[in-house]
């Protein structure tokens, strides 16, 4: 299973798609930085050295230190782990059940479809951010509550995407053939139809990943997300705000990581949509 994923990434990488290549390359760098964080730095992200307050970037401290004497570089790369984890969970967990809801909805139609769609409408009726903040105001701040509130709301986009594709796909001959062959509905939906309709969701998830990281960073910035002293990109930008003129490195350099990650993911999303778009191209009749 893991081998397949690596093969997929390899084959995507080898395709002649520059956007995809650059995007994957950049993202891998960030990813590896996160994984190998302890090996890249000898400092502890929480250690406060009162003798080294607000030092600018130097050989000892690549990104300088903050107002508590903590090494900003260390905090940034440890924050990478948290932010990537957050992005992954908030994107792919809602994707899974959102896709399932949308797939059943589109395939069966009728009563099930109506119920599912009214649920979607309810969830989408409120502006996303307002809803999140509302839920957080009830549950209290903190990363786990952020997860809960996002899980409650973020699935709707995927449900809609898949439902729309499924409505078209289920009338195609190969699906009818599968029904005639006697296959059960679950098999038809997930083994037969899904591989052909999931691509738009995958592409969307790339952008969703970025947006979710920004969302959490934004919430942390507002004080509703990750609580100090845990390093998280958005929280670090928030903390560095007061020092932006004197110690620009505290907010800016973690901010750069957000930008690079977002940029990499957007490139991957673009590259994938080119790639998948090509696959669906119809041949020109000669």
């Amino acid at each position, binding site marked *: 299973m893991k081998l397949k994923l690596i093969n997929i990434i390899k084959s995507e990488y080898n395709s002649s798609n520059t956007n995809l290549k650059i995007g994957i390359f950049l993202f891998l760098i960030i990813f590896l930085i996160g994984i190998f964080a302890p090996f890249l730095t000898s400092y502890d992200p929480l250690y406060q050295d009162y003798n080294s307050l607000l030092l600018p970037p130097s050989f000892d401290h690549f990104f300088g230190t903050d107002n508590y004497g903590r090494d900003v570089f260390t905090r940034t790369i440890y924050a990478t782990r948290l932010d990537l984890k957050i992005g992954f969970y908030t994107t792919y967990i809602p994707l899974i059940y959102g896709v399932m809801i949308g797939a059943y909805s589109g395939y069966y139609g009728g009563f099930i479809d109506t119920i599912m769609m009214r649920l979607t409408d309810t969830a989408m009726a409120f502006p996303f951010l307002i809803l999140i903040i509302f839920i957080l105001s009830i549950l209290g701040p903190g990363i786990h509550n952020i997860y809960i509130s996002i899980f409650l709301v973020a699935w709707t986009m995927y449900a809609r995407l898949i439902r729309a594709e499924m409505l078209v796909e289920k009338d195609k*001959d*190969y699906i009818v*053939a599968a*029904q*005639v062959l*006697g296959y059960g509905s679950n098999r038809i939906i997930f083994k037969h139809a899904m591989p052909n309709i999931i691509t738009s969701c995958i592409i969307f998830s790339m952008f969703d990943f970025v947006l979710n990281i920004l969302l959490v960073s934004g919430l942390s910035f507002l004080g509703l997300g990750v609580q100090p002293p845990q390093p998280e990109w958005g929280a670090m930008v928030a903390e560095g705000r007061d020092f932006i003129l004197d110690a620009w490195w505290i907010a800016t350099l973690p901010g750069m990581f957000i930008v690079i990650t977002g940029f990499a993911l957007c490139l991957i999303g673009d590259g994938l949509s080119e790639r998948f778009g090509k696959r669906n191209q119809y041949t020109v009749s000669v």
Partner: protein
Amino acid sequence: MKSNILLQIKNLTVEFSKDKSLFDIFKGNSKKTLKAINGVDLSLSKGEILGLVGESGSGKSSLIKTIVGINKIKDGKILYLGKEIDYKNRKIKKFLSKKFQVVFQDPYSSLNPSMTVFATLKEVIKFHNSELDYKAVYEKMISLLTMVGFNKDLIYRKPKSLSGGQRQRIGIARALAVEPEILLLDEPVTALDVSIQAQILNLLKDLNEKLNLTMLFVAHELSIIEFMCEKVAVMYLGEIVEFGNKNEIFRNPKHPYTKKLIESIPKLPF
């Protein structure tokens, strides 16, 4: 010759209704229904190739979909070996899939684009013969491919790398893998080039003779129907307007639509 009637369709009526929109409810409009099939009688004997000819909107494709249980029956019944088929029974799916199989018109959409030939056929064979081991499945697959004239070196290809004729052969192989009693063919060669059409038509005739496979052959081209079938039914707007032996139909058409159809066929100058 004692005819062994496999399938009987009696007074079949199938309707498609358009759901009422809010506007219709407001205006008090009744539900619009379209009779796709209107009182059709037909019977199919073992080993025969029955031709069903009609243009678009005649209901010929709907008939196939009704036989396999996709469309709902409004009125009338369909009997297999004398017993009425109860389409409402949930268990009927397995029964239907073993008795009737379909070959579709469009070779480009009738195969799953993300599955290789190997995967598609393996799934069918394994699903209907769960006791077979890998080797037996593979052997059955090879014998099917040989029967339909498909090069086994190409089994790891996906449909997009195959030609129309090759895809249609796989469609036929997939249907045959189930070992059905009746093969329902919905315009199987319409989307193929003429020289490939000839190959597939020859293949179907071979299969009919070798396996004594009963076929319902639906098409809109009379010349193809005349080549393939002995008996022909002409369908127009959901009804069978003429039925008989092919020679009679072609030399002595009685219904005006049949006459019009025959006149419209462009003919080669022989």
